[in-house]
């Protein structure tokens, strides 16, 4: 593995009973890159993230994240990464502030530092006015922001974000996407999935497209366009739809109009 790569994935496979969810996936992500991981529903994105973050054991294959092998010391891996999964695993009966303090302390931060970072994150993500409210009473967008704050509180060098902007209001969405950009500028690597292709096109330096468990394309948007012989102004959406063989119907409904 080259030192320039934060994530190196080699033949990662996950089989549930007889169904292969992720099939020999391999790719590399350079340090400090904003890497978009795209695919239709059920393509294997979340399964890949769970394997890369140590929450799911691969059936075969391995990965190295910031020099730590997935099959090796999982705790060392967890010290270096921050994770925002689609399910938003949160303790619903804690307040937002309690939750963030708890996450900071579980990452081993001293209490004054945990307090300082919690305050900063609550302010930054506009959660401060609702700091005492229980998570169960948060809106989906607020839960997402809190889960993101938990992923950031310990200062990870690699961030795995599954649909981080989904359900967040436009103002917070801009704040979060600007923050993520600044993080990559400071050398943090971002592994990012989203269904909103405009956002991916705007933010990501590089993308990989997964379909039915297999990587069907990887590179910068220009590289993928060139590989697939698409015209220079083809959008990421055009590329994506072509690669996943989407059947986009164009006829109207008979009784409407």
């Amino acid at each position, binding site marked *: 593995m080259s030192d320039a790569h934060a994530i190196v994935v080699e033949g990662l496979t996950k089989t549930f009973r007889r169904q292969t969810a992720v099939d020999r996936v391999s790719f590399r992500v350079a340090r400090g890159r904003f890497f978009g991981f795209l695919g239709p529903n059920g393509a294997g994105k979340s399964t890949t993230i769970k394997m890369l973050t140590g929450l799911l054991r691969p059936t075969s294959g391995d990965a190295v994240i910031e020099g730590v092998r997935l099959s090796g010391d999982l705790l060392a891996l967890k010290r270096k990464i921050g994770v925002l999964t689609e399910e938003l695993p*949160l303790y619903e009966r804690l307040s937002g502030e309690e939750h963030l303090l708890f996450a900071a302390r579980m990452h081993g931060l001293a*209490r004054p530092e945990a307090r300082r970072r919690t305050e900063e994150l609550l302010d930054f993500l506009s959660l401060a006015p609702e700091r005492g409210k*229980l998570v169960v009473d948060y809106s989906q967008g607020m839960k997402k922001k809190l889960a993101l704050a938990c992923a950031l509180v310990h200062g990870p060098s690699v961030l795995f974000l599954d649909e981080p902007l989904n359900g967040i209001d436009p103002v917070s969405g801009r704040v979060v996407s600007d923050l993520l950009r600044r993080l990559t500028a400071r050398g943090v690597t971002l592994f990012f999935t989203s269904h909103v292709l405009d956002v991916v096109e705007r933010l990501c330096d590089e993308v990989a497209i997964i379909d039915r468990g297999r990587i069907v394309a990887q590179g910068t948007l220009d590289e993928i366009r060139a590989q697939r012989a698409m015209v220079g102004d083809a959008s990421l959406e055009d590329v994506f739809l072509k690669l996943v063989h989407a059947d986009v119907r164009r006829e109207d409904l008979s009784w409407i109009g």
Partner: protein
Amino acid sequence: MDRLIALVALRWRLEARAVSGSRGRMAALLVAVPALGVFSLASAFVAFSLTRFAERAQPELTLPALSALATLFGLTWALSPLLAGVSATETHDLGKLLPYPVPLPTLVASSLLANLLQPMVLAQLPPLAALSLALGGGSARGPVALVGLGLGLALVLAAGQAVGIALHAVSRNRRWHDRALLVGIGLGVAFSLLPILLLSRGGSGFRRLALLLLERDVFALVPFSWGARAAVHAGRGEALAFLGWAGASTLALAAVVGVSVALAQRLYRGELDLGEASGGGAARTRMRLHGVVGALVEKDLRVAWRDPRTKALVFTGVIGPLILLLFLWQGSAGPLRPGLLLAIASFSGLGALGSNAFALERQGLGLLFGFPADRLSILVGKNLGVIALRLPALVAVSLATLVIAGPGFVPAIAAVVLLTQMLAAAADNYLSILFPFPVAAAGRDPGASVSGTRGLGAAAMTLVATMGTLVASAPFVFLAWLPELLGERWLFTLTLPLALGGSAAVYFMATSGAARLLERREPELVARMAGED
């Protein structure tokens, strides 16, 4: 009418599919339906015999007794979602049907009609038929009595539906939902304890009160009894009285259906203001305990206190040993022997077994295992949380010991409870890792039951773990009790720290092993709990 038929058919189709689509439900139905049938026929026989006997021996008692039974039946049926956590009759999920242009009264009526073919409702028909036969004596008065009883059953079903809709309204606000849940658990426990109270030494007061209520015919005031009263009058050929009570019952039925419609209307338009679900207090959170273990204990205590189900478990953990004590006290002629207190202390300590180290995590499990904290600290933190949550049980047993046996026994009994809890928690760590409970999927009610339980293997392992805990704790329990056996109570100052220290050492050895097991099996454990394996 088309819509009404479509809605009723939809309910039946959904219920049939829910059964046919699940082997577990199908098996439960195959077991439950014959049992329900036998119970229904037996109830019919008892109802017939008792009513005939009462009508011949003490006819003046028939009316108040039937009114009391009808009231009890109506209340337990209507409040079944609160008392048992399961509604005896379900209601349509009106939220899914409201976008369609169907009038609300049609929706409510369809739900009520669909209920008529539910097994629980069908099972009521034989007892009602037997009752009408007993009251009418085989003459033409029988079918008229059946009309009265049918009206009573319809009112019960309608009330059940109204309660269901009201609970649905309440559950839209988390704070009210929690309160309703806690009240429901409290009512359920109170109802379960009622027979014990009535049969206990102090139960004569309750029995006198029940007899007084019967003598005064107080239950005539409860609408649930009006159908039954109409039936009794029909059986006696008192046409005017029958019409009066049947009319009152019909009016009550119409009123309850009206309440359901109004409630549904207000509920789905958001007109019911239940207030803020939780306050956004500006007070800063205080962190009292240190380190990873402290953070976990604090978190678990906060979560448990705010979760009505867990809070209720804490209280039932107190009630369990106390009920056992009450039973033993009732059964013994003189004062309780100290040996029995020791057994109760061990029983109370064993309650930590089955507490499941990761049960409080629910959907936060993925987050917990994402932290780079060493797994021994996580297990110790979880176990300390469980032991802290069971402190009320320790206090209750100690207080009961103080009252029953005197202050001399309290330190030893408290130490036995504590050391058994520690060792039971250590054993439970293995069960939690090897036979985890699945958690509800994201977006689902985290408290709802999830398919994929621990299974028979786990039950056997629980038995093994119980035996293991008893064996492991035996030397320390002996050490804690030794001064009592020797009659040298001053030795407690020496033996109790030794017993607690020794059991703590065994706990740490066992939990270190469990932590290593957890490190090896962690991804599989997460996948199993999330139902992804």
